[in-house]
């Protein structure tokens, strides 16, 4: 047996190992190169990112549109309402909501309502209205009707839609003095919706200034502010509102009272916001870029205003949208209790206050309609706030 020594190694391949060298010029970042789509995202501004994220929240978008439309209507309340909201139609007291018709006797007549026949029912002491199917009241658009003072400044008589003066046209019925409910609701929106904005401005200002100081300086400033906030938050709100609104003198004009109440609401509402601002600042002020700014020689107000606040502005906006409904509800609650706004100012709270009795529930249910816009606006604001909060943190 002849033994051949065998190598442990395999036989060398005769073929050369393929060697590859890229001809392309050397690029250090080639791995990180972005596709155009990626580029769009990575280089987008914060605001654009938020907008994209927000757009995905469909409900929030529609809520936003709804609120925009409603707020826009506030500017033209007088024009949009069919009557002056203060006009008392003493012949048409407690008229139930009317329907709009298009065809009369099979003929197209354009939008119209039927005239009403009133009968005093001495058995039940109610006013009974029946449609007079023979007489129609044609509605006209962009017409002159009831007189009004636009924002108390310019007098006019143009309405989007109106019926001839003296004819009944009450889409949402009338109240106990014969005032058109639809006009009152439209007019009430002006007060109820704006009271939130003014209040929020006051509370925003106080919240950022006080919370900012507490968070940035820390130490005893923080300590004092925290305790004040705790005290303010521990006071039950309704009794506090009541006593504050009782202070306002009766001789003040309703518009002054309205401002007084907004400011009261704002003065009490800044605490939550101040807390949020403080905690954000506490964490942000430890960041390197703050240190850098300080080393360059920036003062506290510049650091807070230029470097820190923008860092959580989006968060603030979101929290503001959630606070506005509380303001609206606050006004409604106060007026509902008869301690907020008073006649002749008309707000949704004032309207609901008037609906607060057994007669309304049992016999005149349409007087409770102002609940509907309140609910819709509050829900819309909540959805909008929800969407904004999600959007405020787009990388999540």
């Amino acid at each position, binding site marked *: 047996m002849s033994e051949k020594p065998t190598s442990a190694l395999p036989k060398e391949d005769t073929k050369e190992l393929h060697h590859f060298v890229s001809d392309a010029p050397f690029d250090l970042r080639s791995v990180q190169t972005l596709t155009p789509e990626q580029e769009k995202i990575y280089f987008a501004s914060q605001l654009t990112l938020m907008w994209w994220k927000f757009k995905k929240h469909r409900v929030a978008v529609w809520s936003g549109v709804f609120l925009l439309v409603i707020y826009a209507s506030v500017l033209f309340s007088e024009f949009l309402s069919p009557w002056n909201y203060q006009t*008392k139609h*003493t012949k048409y*007291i407690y008229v139930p909501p009317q329907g709009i018709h298009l065809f009369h006797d099979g003929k197209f007549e354009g939008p119209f309502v039927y005239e009403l026949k009133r009968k*005093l029912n001495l*058995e*039940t*002491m*109610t006013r009974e209205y029946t449609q007079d199917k023979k007489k129609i009241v044609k509605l006209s658009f962009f017409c002159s009707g009831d007189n009004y003072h636009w924002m108390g400044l310019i007098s006019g008589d143009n309405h989007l839609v109106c019926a001839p003066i003296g004819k009944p046209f009450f889409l949402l019925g009338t109240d*106990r*003095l*014969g005032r058109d409910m639809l006009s009152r609701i439209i007019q009430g929106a002006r007060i109820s919706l704006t009271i939130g904005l003014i209040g929020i401005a006051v509370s925003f200002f106080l919240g950022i200034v006080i919370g900012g100081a507490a968070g940035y300086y820390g130490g005893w400033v923080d300590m004092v502010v925290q305790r004040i906030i705790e005290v303010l938050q521990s006071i039950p709100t309704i009794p506090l509102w009541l006593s504050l609104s009782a202070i306002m003198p*009766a*001789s003040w004009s309703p518009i002054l009272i309205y401002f007084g109440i907004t400011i009261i609401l704002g003065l009490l509402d800044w605490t939550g916001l101040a807390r949020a601002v403080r905690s954000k600042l506490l964490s942000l002020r430890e960041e390197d870029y703050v240190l850098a700014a300080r080393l360059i020689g920036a003062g506290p107000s510049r650091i807070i205003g230029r470097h820190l606040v923008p860092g959580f502005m989006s968060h603030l906006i979101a929290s503001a949208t959630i606070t506005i409904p509380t303001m609206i509800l606050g006004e409604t609650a106060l007026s509902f209790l*008869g301690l907020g706004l*008073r*006649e*002749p100012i008309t707000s949704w709270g004032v309207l609901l206050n*008037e609906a607060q*009795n*057994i*007669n309304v529930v*049992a*016999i005149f249910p349409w007087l409770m309609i102002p609940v509907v816009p309140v609910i819709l606006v509050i829900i819309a604001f909540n959805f909008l706030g929800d969407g904004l909060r999600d959007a405020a943190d787009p990388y999540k």
Partner: protein
Amino acid sequence: MKPLLKSAAMLIASSFIGLSQAFAAPPEEPRVIDFKALEKSIGKKGGSIDILMGKWKDIRQMTIYSNARLVSYDQTFSLSPDILKSVDNDGQKSFTLHLRKGHKWSDGTPFTTEDFRYWWENVANNEELEPAGPPAAMLVNGKGPTVDIIDSHTIRYTWDNVNPLFLPALAGARPQYIYMPAHYMKQFHAKFADAGKIAELITSEKVQNWTSLHKRFGRQYRPENPDLPTLQSWMNTTKLPSERIVFKANPHFHRVDSEGTQLPYIDQVVMNVVSSEIIAAKTGTGESALQGRYLRFDNFAFLKKGAEEGNYKVVLWPSGKGSEMTLLPNLNVKDEAFRKAFQDVRVRRALSMAVNRSEINETIFFGLAREASNSVLPSSPLYSDEDAQAWSSLDIEKANALLDEAGYDKKDSSGTRLLPDGRPFEIIVETAGESSQETDILQLITDHWKSIGVKLFVKPSQRDILRKRVSSGEAMMSTWEGLNRGLATPEMNPEELAPVSSVQAQWPVWGLNYESNGKSGEAATLPEVAKLSGLYKEWRAASTRDAQEKIWKEMLSIFTDQVYTIGVVSGGLQPIVVSNKLQNVPEEGIWSFEPTLYFGHYLPDTFWLDE
């Protein structure tokens, strides 16, 4: 063993007393109610009814509904004896009161002249209990009567001069009590009771002194003490505070029906105290067997709707008030410019004439009220068209002319008149904030007054605060109901027409002057008001009905011509809810404090349950 025996004996004794109460009877000489004349049906005894009230202080409504008075108003609104068997009236100067034989307090103790003596000698004339002396109805020119107690059932009051106030005061809705259960009250009186015991009670009841103790336990009009014996048809058995106050039939009540059955028929009245806003709602579900208070005309439709399910009927009683709502310009307001304005009759007349009463009637009262000033009602013998129509018809032109003439002819850019000191003519009307009807009427008036260049602001507050602000002169103008005695007869006290009380919101300071016998307040400076004061004094000295009638009419004509109160409309309607089980409640009645005592005039003790 001994204490056990004692308690057993006490148990037997107490059950015996209970038994004797159960067999209690009316006086030997009861007041027999003529059921035929009143068109009432003979009922049967027993049962319990529920009524609703808004606050526990309304417990006094039971004293008003019960309507047991020494004398009371009969069907023609003249005075006739009720608790008393008879009264001998000698020219309004001397009154001999005869009590019923065998009449007892609700606890079974005889009701005698001793109870009158106790009140007159030990309460009215006790300087500690009544520092101001006996009440006005007992004084003529500051002098009280001579009281002769003839026997245990006869007592005579004699004055030097006529006292026409005496009998009407006894019959009032809030009557003048001239008697007290002496046997019960003596335990709280320093003169009779043991000093140690009184001191003990003062500590346990947490009061200042024995007089407050005596007052607290002796309130007859507001029967909050369940132990206080009473003469009313039902007696309170619940210690306050409570949300459910139970009244039981008085076993010694002095009225019987035509067949001799003792009244009241109904055994028990339960007064449930709930928030006044929900009374209409609760009544609509049948939770009250008899309700008028806290129901408003605008609840009628709602109440009618629930009538079948709630097993009740709703009727409308006209109100007996002189006006459903009046505006009261405060002639004593602190603000000098407004004081001068309100004291000017031209301003008051202009304000009244600018009110569009027919619009208010149409809108708020369904067109069923009368557009009139604050005066008496047509069914009163003192009524005249002239008074009712005085300065109450709408005439904007004339109102404007009157204001111009009074020197308020300058206006600012918005058309509001200016006061001489340059401030705008803005009137703040303060209300008790108790009814939305008030606010609605004021809203309509706000528009009406705009056309004469006067601005109106409404300030709702609260009853007690309002009273305080009015009497201190801080409130410019307030609202209240019109004359309580809209159904006045010449015998009734015309005090509402003259400054006699600091509660009168149109002249609180002048009223206080009379009330305090000139010690505080000021005498009326306006000649017409002074004339009213003078006439009031004349009425109090008038001995014949004719003389009284003449004075009443003159006072009414000054009062309405000078427009001290601006009446809106009169003759509003009050919904009354009556359970279908409850019998003898009349379909037609008049809802007023005086003289009908709300239900009192229709004798709730004759109401019975048909179950």
